[in-house]
């Protein structure tokens, strides 16, 4: 079942507007213009689509809030910052089927009453920027974008904006600040962007993959979509399989597929012996081999004690030291913290320091309880998702591999010989 990659996975499909139209592209837009905003909203709500950017918020509700607000102008923003390590799914859509995204954004604009959209592209995605530029130009030539779209009185334009390499700018409010030309740092929430977004106006902000589901929902109906995959959180999901797996890559599969099936059937098995899995990238908690039967949808992964996030499934085999892994995660967040709030700015710094000390044989037993407390306080008090989840992986490696930590601290030994221990 392919909803998102149906074109991309077709033999000979190339990112050109003629190919897209050839595959039925922009039929959804015509349909949308015909059925009108209220019907579009009800289909999306019926689909029970939730955001694919990490937070899992119901998309239909988000659009409805923006549509019902009283302020104008309104904006549509696509989050194409894709900065989470281990995530490389949005890039596939952006580079190989950009018209799908454009079509979805136009439909969104039409639904919420916006005439302007932005795509915020990860700074490192150079080629994507050029591809999108071309795609927008073509869409305008075909009147799928621009003034009086397909002869209607609806007009919509899309601007491209390139990030400058900050992971935190993937967080929606930091992204909006960055888009406004400010330093990318999170805003106080509430108010949420649907009410007070770009230039303080109502803004729908969705992930690339979230948008990519919209045309199919319009064409085939919310009802149809809601029957795909897991009952709890339907649809397909792009899973980014990476790490110690035989065939890494992006796999579109119905939600609710088991982690085991994902690894074995699609990843063709683990390279070496499985030790742990990060199901939602470095901001998620570790799952163990005993968790392999978890269904890969948002609620089920959460129940298993982790998060699905953007779907960055990182496979870790037994050649990796979990102390070293925890340290690397902490390094990433220390580097990427925006520095605005105290717990994250100072906490990531200290977590990295403590873990580095442990890998150098300088750890103390009290470090473990301090790290736990730090994780709890950072979760409790950090201003945005970055700080709140920064020590998730650290905390779970501490809890699930206590022996390795004890060995590093008490015996000053890294059994895999990875940590320098001096």
């Amino acid at each position: 079942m392919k909803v998102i990659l149906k074109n991309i996975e077709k033999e000979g499909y190339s990112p050109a507007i003629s190919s897209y139209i050839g595959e039925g592209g922009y039929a959804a837009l015509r349909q949308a213009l015909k059925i009108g905003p209220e019907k579009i909203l009800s289909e999306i709500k019926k689909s029970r689509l939730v955001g694919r950017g990490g937070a899992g918020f119901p998309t239909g509700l988000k659009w409805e809030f923006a549509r019902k607000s009283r302020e104008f102008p309104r904006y549509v923003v696509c989050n194409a910052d894709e900065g989470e390590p281990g995530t490389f799914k949005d890039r596939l859509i952006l580079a190989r089927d950009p018209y799908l995204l454009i079509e979805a954004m136009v439909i969104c604009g039409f639904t919420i009453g916006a005439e302007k959209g932005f795509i915020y592209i990860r700074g490192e995605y150079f080629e994507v920027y050029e591809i999108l530029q071309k795609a927008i130009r073509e869409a305008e030539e075909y009147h799928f974008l621009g003034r009086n779209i397909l002869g209607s009185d609806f007009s919509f334009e899309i601007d491209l904006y390139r990030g400058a390499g900050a992971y935190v700018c993937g967080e929606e409010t930091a992204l909006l600040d960055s888009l406004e030309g400010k330093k990318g740092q999170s805003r106080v929430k509430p108010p949420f962007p649907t009410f007070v977004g770009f230039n303080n106006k109502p803004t729908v902000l969705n992930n690339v993959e979230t948008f990519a589901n919209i045309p199919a929902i319009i064409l085939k109906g919310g009802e149809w979509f809601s029957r795909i995959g897991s009952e709890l959180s339907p649809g397909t999901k792009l899973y980014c399989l990476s790490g110690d797996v035989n065939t890494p890559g992006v796999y579109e599969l119905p939600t609710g597929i088991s982690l085991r099936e994902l690894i074995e059937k699609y990843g063709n098995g683990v390279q070496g012996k499985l030790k742990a899995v990060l199901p939602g990238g470095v901001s998620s908690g570790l799952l163990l081999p005993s968790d392999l039967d978890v269904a890969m949808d948002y609620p089920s992964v959460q129940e298993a004690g982790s998060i699905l996030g953007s779907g960055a499934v990182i496979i870790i085999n037994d050649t990796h030291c979990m102390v070293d892994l925890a340290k690397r995660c902490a390094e990433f967040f220390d580097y990427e913290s925006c520095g605005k709030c105290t717990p994250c700015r100072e906490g990531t710094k200290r977590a990295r320091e403590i873990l580095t000390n442990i890998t150098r044989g300088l750890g103390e037993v009290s470090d473990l309880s301090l790290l736990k407390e730090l994780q709890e306080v950072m979760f409790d008090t950090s201003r945005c998702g970055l700080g709140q989840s920064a020590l998730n992986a650290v905390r779970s490696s501490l809890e699930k591999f206590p022996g390795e930590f004890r060995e590093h601290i008490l015996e000053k030994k890294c059994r895999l010989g990875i940590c320098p221990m001096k």
Partner: protein
Amino acid sequence: MSELVNLTIDGYQLQVPKETTIFEAAKKVNINIPHLCYHESLSIYGACRVCVVEIEGRPRLEPSCATLVEEGMKVKTNTARVRRARRMIVELLLANHPEDCFTCDRNQICELRKLAYDLGIRELRFEKGRRYHYEMDISSASIVRDPNKCIQCSRCIRVCSEIQSVGAIEFVNRGGRTQVLTFFNKGLNNVECTNCGQCILVCPTGALREKTVVEAVWEAIASPEKFVVVQTAPAVRSAIGEEFNLPAGSLVTGKMAAALRRLGVDKVFDTQFGADLTIMEEAHELVERIRNRGTLPMITSCSPGWIKYIEHFFPNCLEHLSTCKSPQQMFGAIAKTYYAQKLNIDPRNLVVVSIMPCTAKKFEAKRPEMCSVFHYWREKLGLREEDRFFDVDFVLTTREAARMIKEVGIDFVNLPNEDFDTPLGVSTGAAVIFGATGGVMEAALRTAYEVVTGKTLEKIEFEQVRGMEGIKEAEVSLNGLSLKVAVAHGLSNAKVLLEQVEKKESPYHFIEVMACPGGCLGGGGQPIPTNSEIRKKRADSLYREDEGKPIRKSHKNPAIIALYEEFLDKPLSEKSHRLLHTIYTKRDRY
């Protein structure tokens, strides 16, 4: 009346308007939630996370300063979870903070140190150590920034942009490398900073302070060939008592004079003498501009923070500024000419020390044009360019003066009241109120009225220009002319009036501007804390002092009358122009 909301805080039920934050609501039940980045006069920043509280039904703690109350909300401010979080957050700040409280300027009043104590932090579990060490910004004549002590609360940034409309500083870089910096790290002296020092007042730590000259002043006092005179600005007497734990707004004029004398200076004079002189020149300048159709509105020029602001932001409006120097500079010019001559002292040996509520005065005293005395004596004494000296030698803030008094153990609180020395210590009630917003306007009106009408002004209080309203207006009838005046304090208010001037839409004849909120009594050199309540108390005490003065109009000051008779001739005379008036400089934004 806005909608009311019911909630409980720590079990206490209360009802507050809908737009109230939990932080404000908690005050109603006598809980001051610990905080760092929150500040009463600034926008909500919500980043220190010290003020977090527990709200029933929410997965995480929430910052009380940035969370609005909701119907039925149950808030807890004192649970183990909250207290643990607050402690750890402050502990994290301390881990990154230099351990030099002993020698820190803020030792006694640091909010971070106090918070750590109040929260019961008695052990530091994180490794001590900063990863980054930054250079101090010592480029400014007024302000020193030590980024190593910065806890990134953004109060300085917010006061500078929100209250002062300057925006000289901003955060740059990310994460642990975040720093408050000037444009391209050029240093405060090389950007549009006005030296107002409001950032110092709001900083919770020792990261911002005045550039101190205490040692140089001690040296001058100790030097046998130097004749040291001090002048104290009006606002100092309403505030310096706070440094000795007296209640805010205690009027300590006599004790202050006594304390300064005990430091060993030769004469204790009063900037209020300079203020009366300023009024003589400025009131006449106004009358002349009106009579001769000169540039109007005329705008006051006593506040050096304001002067630097207009030079940077409205360089095309400089001809609206009164050419009068500030009272501090007029005092310096007269001390080293008239007074030096009277006592037959070599002006090079006469040292003028100012005690000011202001950090911008330090910059003002070092402006290249503030060397009128040197030019005055140049030929008479055969001075060369390298002998150049300033009209005012050293400027101390109120805080620095208090530190000197403390250093030598003077029992300030129990000192007897002493008088200023004559003649440069003689002043009127009009000069006292220079320290409060609207005071210069009121003093100028008292004199201008009598100069123009030749009649005695019976009701000398101009209530319309008093008080803490950001912009105040009044209309005064002068021999048939209806004189329109306005008063602004805080540079964002000044900006509003200046935009009218720039567009040639200003309805006023005369405008008073003070850079600091409340006027000089809220200056960047005043005791910390300075807040809205304290500013009001200081203002009240200045108006009380005015009421008690036997003479309350500048032109009736006998020492000023004598000065004109013996030396200056008349207001706006040729000599006045040489010594008491000045020029301004167009400046860029950065």
